[in-house]
């Protein structure tokens, strides 16, 4: 309405409009500030501190004033600029800037990222001047790739099949404990050592257990999935959450079997396909004529998780082209339509659930061999939430998006921790990793409100008649595209 008057009668009406708009902007910002004061007042204005064993109160009026001030000023600024009623509304039909950028760089991004990931340890060691100096970076790379793999695994369940799984960490745990238990329990070791020969089993334990762990996790996925997959979306989410917690509680309390809260330590390390990373003449270094360096094992682990992650991505891409993959995507869009077309929804859901669980199991097995130690502490709901946040932020269904989200959220936070100037601004005990989950949670809400299909939201149709038309995710509703 305001826009129309401004266009027809430019001079007087515009001036009056501008005046009332400014007044309104101030009023609105004031109300927002008041609400912010009510929301933040109790929790930021006061701090509960324990003094000499008793609980006392601390006060933070300046922090509260700054926060409320920022919200007031921000709202006022938005009211006067972007949300101003005098501003001509921009009608947008085409793809957004993000989408066009995505389409333009799209073909280059994948090979570039892949090349970077494949050469990363060498780049790191070259720029930092040696393997030992680059240990921190390569460890970080392993962490990021683990989450990339978990993200891609969960992407099959959430992004492709549209099943919200809040207990994905359960399968990560099953994979980790499968390897840990198989490789450390005496009777199992005795049996395999007798069957395969002692040195062979010692050297190949990880490589034999890796597929076992994945299959076992997949089996668990089927066992847990079968009864619950008939449920509607949000019930399924809660039940998977319950299963995740049950598995963790059992791991804590079944002390005889799992070692309880103390976990399982001294898990055998990975070998280079049977060649251990030791100093002696049968070791990896001697075999390839290199000087012994403990970093060889770390670099090798980096490539193992890179390969595992790429297998996950490759399998996903291929599965999408199979009937079952198409059924997953159809199921995500409209379950009732699927059922009326004769798709057995339970089986299709189960296959997605089990496939996702299997990749979670692989990642868990890798986690156990890398850390050499597993305990229930590593498998809390926070991990499930983090993986889900990565999938959501990356844009459900998008492979590159998930990888970028994992790198930014896991790597970015680690990097922030080491920035000296942040400590000078926020004080010495500032630890950005404390804020990680805070940002994750906020980002999940923001993405859902702002761009529900994720930041990179072009969706390529998997089937097309003559030419592939990229469509902006904004224009695609449920059941279309």
């Amino acid at each position, binding site marked *: 309405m305001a826009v129309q008057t401004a266009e027809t009668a430019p001079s007087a009406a515009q001036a009056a409009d501008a005046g009332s708009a400014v007044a309104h902007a101030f009023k609105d910002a004031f109300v927002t500030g008041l609400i912010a004061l009510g929301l933040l007042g109790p929790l930021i204005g006061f701090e509960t501190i324990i003094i000499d064993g008793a*609980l006392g109160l601390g006060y933070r009026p300046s922090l509260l004033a700054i926060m409320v001030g920022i919200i007031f000023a921000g709202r006022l600024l938005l009211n006067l600029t972007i949300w101003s009623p005098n501003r001509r509304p921009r009608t947008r039909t085409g793809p957004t800037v993000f989408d066009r950028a995505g389409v333009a760089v799209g073909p280059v991004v994948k090979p570039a990222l892949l090349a970077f990931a494949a050469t990363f340890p060498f780049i790191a060691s070259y720029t930092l001047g040696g393997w030992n100096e680059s240990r921190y970076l390569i460890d970080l790379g392993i962490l990021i790739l683990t989450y990339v793999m978990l993200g891609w695994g969960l992407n099959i369940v959430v992004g492709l099949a549209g099943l919200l799984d809040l207990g994905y960490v359960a399968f990560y745990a099953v994979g980790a404990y499968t390897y840990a238990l198989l490789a450390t329990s005496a009777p199992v070791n005795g049996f395999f050592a007798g069957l395969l020969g002692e040195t062979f089993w010692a050297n190949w334990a990880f490589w034999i257990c890796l597929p076992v762990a994945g299959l076992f996790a997949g089996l668990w996925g089927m066992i847990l999935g079968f009864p619950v997959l008939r*449920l509607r979306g949000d019930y399924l989410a809660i039940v998977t959450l*319950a299963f995740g917690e049950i598995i963790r*509680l059992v791991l804590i309390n079944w002390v005889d079997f799992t070692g309880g809260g103390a976990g399982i330590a001294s898990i055998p390390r990975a070998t280079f396909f049977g060649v251990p990373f030791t100093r002696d003449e049968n070791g990896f270094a001697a075999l390839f004529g290199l000087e012994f360096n403990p970093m060889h094992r770390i670099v090798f682990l980096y490539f193992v998780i890179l390969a595992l992650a790429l297998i996950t991505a490759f399998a996903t891409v291929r599965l999408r082209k199979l009937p079952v993959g198409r059924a997953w995507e159809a199921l995500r869009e409209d379950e009732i339509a699927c059922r009326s077309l004769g798709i057995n929804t339970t089986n299709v859901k189960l296959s997605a659930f089990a496939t996702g669980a299997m990749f979670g199991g692989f990642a868990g097995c890798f986690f156990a061999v890398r850390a050499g130690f597993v305990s229930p502490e590593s498998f809390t709901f926070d991990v499930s939430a983090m993986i889900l946040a990565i999938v*959501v932020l990356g844009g459900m269904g998008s492979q590159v998006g998930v990888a970028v989200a994992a790198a930014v959220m896991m790597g970015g936070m680690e990097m922030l921790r080491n920035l000296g100037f942040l400590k000078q601004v926020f004080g010495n005990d500032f630890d950005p990793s404390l804020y990680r989950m805070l940002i994750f949670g906020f980002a999940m*809400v923001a993405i859902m*409100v702002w761009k529900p299909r994720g930041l990179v939201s072009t969706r390529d149709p998997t089937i097309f008649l003559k030419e592939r038309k990229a469509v902006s995710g904004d224009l695609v509703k449920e059941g279309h595209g």
Partner: protein
Amino acid sequence: MDVFVQQLINGLTLGSIYGLIAIGYTMVFGIIGMVNFAHGDVFMVSAFIALICFLLLTTVLGITSIFLALAIVLVVAMFFTSLVSWAIERVAYRPLRGSFRLAPMISAIGMSIFLANFVQVTQGPRNKPVPPMITDVIVLMDSGGYQVTLAWKQVIIMVVTALLLGGFWYLVQKTSLGRAQRAVEQDRKMAALLGINVDHTISLTFVIGAALAAVAGVMYLMYYGVANFADGFVPGVKAFTAAVLGGIGSLPGAVLGGLLIGLIETFWSAYFSIEYKDVAAFSILAITLIFMPQGLLGRPEVEKV
């Protein structure tokens, strides 16, 4: 027998708290069909607001009457928690109506993570112990050393819960707000056509749910004497279990489910193993959803195209 009676009292107390939280879940589910995953954390936030208010009243203002302090804490906590819940609905859920199926759920999970970590960052990760508020007990039975006691705070919890439920029942059944709410629950579009402000009604549903969760938060703080940023998650899931067990969408069902879950949890801890009490509650959730998704008092759900 005496152990049984004691556990019955404890279970009913715990069940009252779960029932109060469960109403928030069941009301929101009834009206917009989403699981408000952040509700457990709203409950936790209310416990913190209550804790801060209590400390302010006793240590700074020097109020000595514990009942006066509790009454003020209750009102303050209800007000601020309602504000938090209103803001959550406005910011995180309302823009998502009509979005794709999983969007509100994911947004709610994000909000839950955000709230828990916000409290962790602003209030610290440690347990916050409150000095015991009301310590008097009534000895009901005394059989050779084992005393069955009914603590005054348990009496307060049960009485307050019963009073609030009465008031709440009146609100939903007899007032125009309650009628509007039931109308929106039945058919949102039709209700809007008949002049009901749907957005307003949904906002109020969130506010009422949060106010009841705030009462639960104050009771929880008084009963256990401790607040922690992670305390929203498990009680939240248990209260959701209660709502599902009673039949989601059904208000008497939520209370019944809450009492049942409270009783099951205390009896399980007393007679089987305390380590697996959470496993018991989670298993009930899974079993109910798989075999009896409509719950005890709920209506079976019909899926329409």
